[in-house]
């Protein structure tokens, strides 16, 4: 019987063997050489282009080898790792970041012609040059971390809460409502002295907190109820809830600003509901210290909540398998709703902290897109609150660094942050592969016949 495929096999194999381990190594070396060459070469643009093309080709060849490798060609195979030492893990992650920085450097060099090392130093200074900058970074870090912490239990339960943005906004709205309307009510209900006492005391903050918690919880509760009872797709639901929240907030925004072009800070004259400023690290009038402290406390609490409490255990089981949860006597419905309420409450509190502490006002941009960024943070940290702190700090560092280079170099603009961040994220996410799998190169096997 003649089978063309069978008769071709030996030839095909010989062809494959030529392109085995050494080729891949060669490709990798070529790519690296090209990269380093590019970074060092202040030379002729033609040399640069040649190196860039070389690098592109080499990486393309590598990608081809890798992709084809796990499908057809047996000389390079992907095998699942059983275990990996912690040092190797750290090593993989660090090399990923280093590689990403190299690629970013390349990008900076090619596009702007700036010296990447100078740019990196400038970026570093963007966060660490002065105490004021450090505080500014902490100010932006705390809400991002808090929202990540808020989303983590939901995602761990495999509940797709992309509604962090809306939950924060509703929380913020709660506080803003209290700031706008409660003073009026108090002033009409009580004599002036009592009213002033009430307004400067803790009552107003308590009311703001309660309103924020209630609205945030509601925004978590609604999609959860439908998911738990009817299996309604929560991704779309929470996404739409974001827009509903945005529209509600923008409605109040327009109502309050009236004929003015912008809203400005709420209670500008009375400062009712504003957090008191303190001096930290020589930086005066820091109104967001409570947010930072709260974030640190919540980080520890959420870590313990997920790891050591019965609720955390239930969340893990539900996230793994709903059938197992049922078997274990865990009410999936109850856990889903409870966890989303917790998620919503935390987001609501973030809204409260932003309105009272950081902004003293509200707009549709109050959450600054952190509701989405936090999803990345939570997933990349695998829901470990301490990792979340690190990752969110890293993201904020990049953002502030990019702000700095925008100021320092005319050719840069703030969107460089997104590109640099994106590339670093790609590398870190992709490096996970080398933690879970290893590549097996097939050495030359004995010839058939």
């Amino acid at each position, binding site marked *: *019987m003649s*089978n063309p*495929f*069978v*008769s071709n*096999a*030996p030839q*095909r*194999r010989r062809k494959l063997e030529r392109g085995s381990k050494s080729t891949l190594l060669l490709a990798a070396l070529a790519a690296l050489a090209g990269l380093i060459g590019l970074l060092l070469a202040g030379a002729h643009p033609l040399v640069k282009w040649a190196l860039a093309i070389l690098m592109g080709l080499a990486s393309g060849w590598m990608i081809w080898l890798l992709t084809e490798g796990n*499908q*057809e*060609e*047996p000389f390079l*195979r992907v*095998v*699942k*790792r*059983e*275990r990996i030492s912690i040092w190797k893990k750290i090593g993989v992650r660090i090399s990923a970041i280093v590689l990403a920085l190299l690629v970013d450097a390349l990008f900076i060099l090619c596009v702007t012609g700036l010296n990447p090392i100078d740019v990196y130093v400038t970026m570093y200074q963007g966060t660490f040059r002065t105490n004021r900058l450090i505080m500014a970074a902490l100010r932006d870090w705390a809400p991002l971390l808090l929202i990540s912490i808020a989303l983590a239990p939901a995602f761990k339960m495999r509940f797709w809460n992309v509604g962090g943005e809306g939950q924060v906004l509703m929380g913020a709205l709660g506080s803003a409502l209290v700031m706008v309307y409660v003073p009026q009510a108090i002033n009409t209900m009580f004599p002036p002295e009592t009213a002033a006492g009430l307004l400067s005391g803790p009552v107003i903050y308590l009311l703001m907190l309660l309103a924020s918690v209630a609205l945030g919880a509601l925004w978590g509760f609604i999609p959860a109820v439908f998911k738990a009872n009817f299996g309604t797709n929560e991704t779309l639901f929470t996404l739409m809830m974001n827009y509903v929240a945005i529209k509600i907030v923008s409605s109040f925004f327009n109502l309050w600003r009236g004929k003015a072009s912008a809203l400005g800070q709420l209670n500008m004259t009375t400062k009712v509901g504003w957090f008191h400023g303190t001096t930290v690290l020589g930086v005066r009038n820091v109104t967001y210290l409570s947010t930072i402290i709260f974030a640190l406390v919540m980080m520890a609490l959420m870590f313990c909540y997920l790891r*050591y*409490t*019965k*609720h*955390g*255990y*239930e969340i*893990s*089981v539900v996230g*793994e*398998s709903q*059938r*197992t949860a*049922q*078997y*274990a*006597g*865990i*009410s999936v419905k109850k856990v889903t709703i409870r966890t989303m309420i917790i998620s919503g409450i935390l987001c609501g509190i973030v809204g409260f902290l932003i309105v009272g502490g950081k902004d003293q006002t509200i707009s549709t941009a109050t959450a600054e897109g952190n509701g989405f960024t936090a999803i990345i943070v939570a997933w990349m940290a695998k829901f470990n609150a301490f990792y979340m702190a690190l990752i969110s700090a890293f993201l904020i560092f990049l953002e502030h660094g990019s702000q700095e280079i925008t100021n320092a170099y005319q050719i840069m603009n703030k969107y460089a942050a997104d590109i640099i961040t994106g590339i670093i994220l790609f590398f870190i996410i992709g490096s996970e592969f080398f933690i879970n799998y290893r590549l097996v190169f097939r050495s030359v*096997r004995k010839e*058939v*016949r």
Partner: protein
Amino acid sequence: MTDYAIELRHITKTFGSVVANRDVSMFVRKGEILSLLGENGSGKTTLMNMIAGIYYPDSGEILVDGTAAEIRSPRDAMRLKIGMVHQHFKLINVFTAAENIALVMEHKGKYSLKSVKARAREICDQYGFDLDLDQKVYEMSVSQKQTLEIVKVLFEGADLLILDEPTAVLTPQETERLFNVMRAMRNNGKSIIIITHKLHEVLEISDRVVVLRKGEYVGDVLTRDATTAVLTEMMVGQKVSLNIGRSDPRELHIRLAVRHLSVLNAENVKVLDDVSFDAFGGEILGIAGISGNGQKELLEAIAGLQRGAEGSSVIYYPDDDRDSTAEQLLGKPPAAIRKMGVHLSFVPEDRLGMGLVGSMGMADNMMLKSYKEGHSLLVQRNAPRKLAREIKESLGVITPSIQTPVSRLSGGNVQKVLVGREIAAAPTVLMTAYAVRGLDIHTSYTIYRLLEEQKRQGVAVIYVGEDLDVLIELCDRILVLCGGKMNGILNARKTTKEQVGLLMTKLADKEGKDR
């Protein structure tokens, strides 16, 4: 020109540190039905998956028609006219039968469902298959799905067919029909490899038997020279005393009374229909039946995981006595049942998808049902850790540590963890579903002995099984389910396999009940 349809030479395959096949060499003649025999975990499926292009061997070579062949993917296998029916069907649920068949067509030529249907119809007619080509797979029964799988393979024009445990889900009649088809295919010159661990089927259908043990080739025998004893010894490697040591039940006391239990599925079809029986402490009640005839629903209804239909009841007698307290279990969720103080243990069929949390270690899995105890908000991990260590020790669970995710353990060890936990809960009722499925013979006997031990301690054991020999040897009474209906309860000491088999397939003739 060779007489061999396929030949394997020195095939080795490892998964991480586990050697699935070591240096296996074997062949299949043209026009032969070959049984590949071995215990679960002996590497039969892995070996066949390498022929089918699912896995790639670490070393060794495969010759098709006498020529060396590289089988890198299922597509290569298809080109070499090799087709495999996997034990877990490889079908797309939302596709119709015809679409599933069209999927495997050589990826050339014009796509036309019509011509696919016409050709499939021809194949069905040739072998007498009854298949609705426009039916969606999710609406099909298991045997229909299997028929579809076989039609698929024939459609590809395979000359070598591999059937992985094809009879596990079939009734005896369906099995007989399948065997007839296989004979017809052999007469058409096709070669067939059938993977199985059922000896009588091996003897009935095959021409030759190849035996694997622990991933290694043991030898081959012509079927006409083989006996059950010879094959068992080859399979297990030593003479095993298959003696469970069943004790006579003593001091039977009433524990559960199931009355008129019916369960509806999502489509409102009765999957369990008016089942009534008593379960006593101090005996093992076997449940026999072809898989998918209501066993799962029966156990899950008792465990509080399924809702019973109108008129159903499951009464629990805590005091060994029908006249004293009686508690209704039906309609209460598992947590409520536990709160009542009812110690109900349940080893479900789906171990990692239901009984255990795969990503957690032994220790955390130990508290799956008991984590709520105590008033603290925190989980208490000391007791489960201790229990995990005890079970690891006493049942010989092989795991790097009690924190290693249980999904990384082998099937036998996973089951030991699960059974160990359920027994450690000091149950008054212990229900097991296919407790030994996928386990090697030694682990199986460990489990049997554990159940026997529970029975002696006065536990009411309910054992759902598929191996009739074991059911008859292990249990005291056997309840037979067929189509969700109860077809009688037999005294295991007096009944025969044939009698049980008959009840499994025929609707009840109201006799044959004892007690």
